[in-house]
């Protein structure tokens, strides 16, 4: 039972981790009309 739970956790973790690291790291804009 515990082995099944552990395997499920590892599987879920491997699915979630890449997306948890996905993100916008930096944004740069050029604007006009600024005083």
């Amino acid at each position, binding site marked *: 039972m515990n082995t099944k739970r552990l395997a499920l956790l590892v599987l879920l973790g491997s699915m979630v981790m890449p*997306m948890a690291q*996905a993100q*916008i*790291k930096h944004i740069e804009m*050029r604007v*006009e009309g600024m005083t």
Partner: protein
Amino acid sequence: MKQHLGRQSGVQNVEVSLLDGKVEITPKKDGQIDPAQLLKAVYDSGVTAAEMDVIARGKIVKDTSGSLALQVEPNRSFTITPSDLSKGLEALQDTPTVVIVRGQLYKKPAGKNKADPSALLKLLILEVQKKE
């Protein structure tokens, strides 16, 4: 504008250069940031956004219309404008590979004085920095 942008969700820091009109936005590490919201915030501040570039990390997926897209959050992805660089990413579609790319999300259409903050943001890949 700096204060207005700084109040937007997911924004850690805003640096504005009056000399060249450059605005650099650092997102919070764990925050979710919405570039379209930032574009609207700039517009609401009374200035016009000419260009918006991003460095983003995400997975290559197919969006609902079947186009290649960069998924940066579970519920946020940007359709990728087809180019020579995007062709090189097609093989990574729906694989666990995570890429870091630099790309242009918005460019003010030529001849228009005002930016359209509601314009659909499409990602033109300028550089593939890393594949993991």
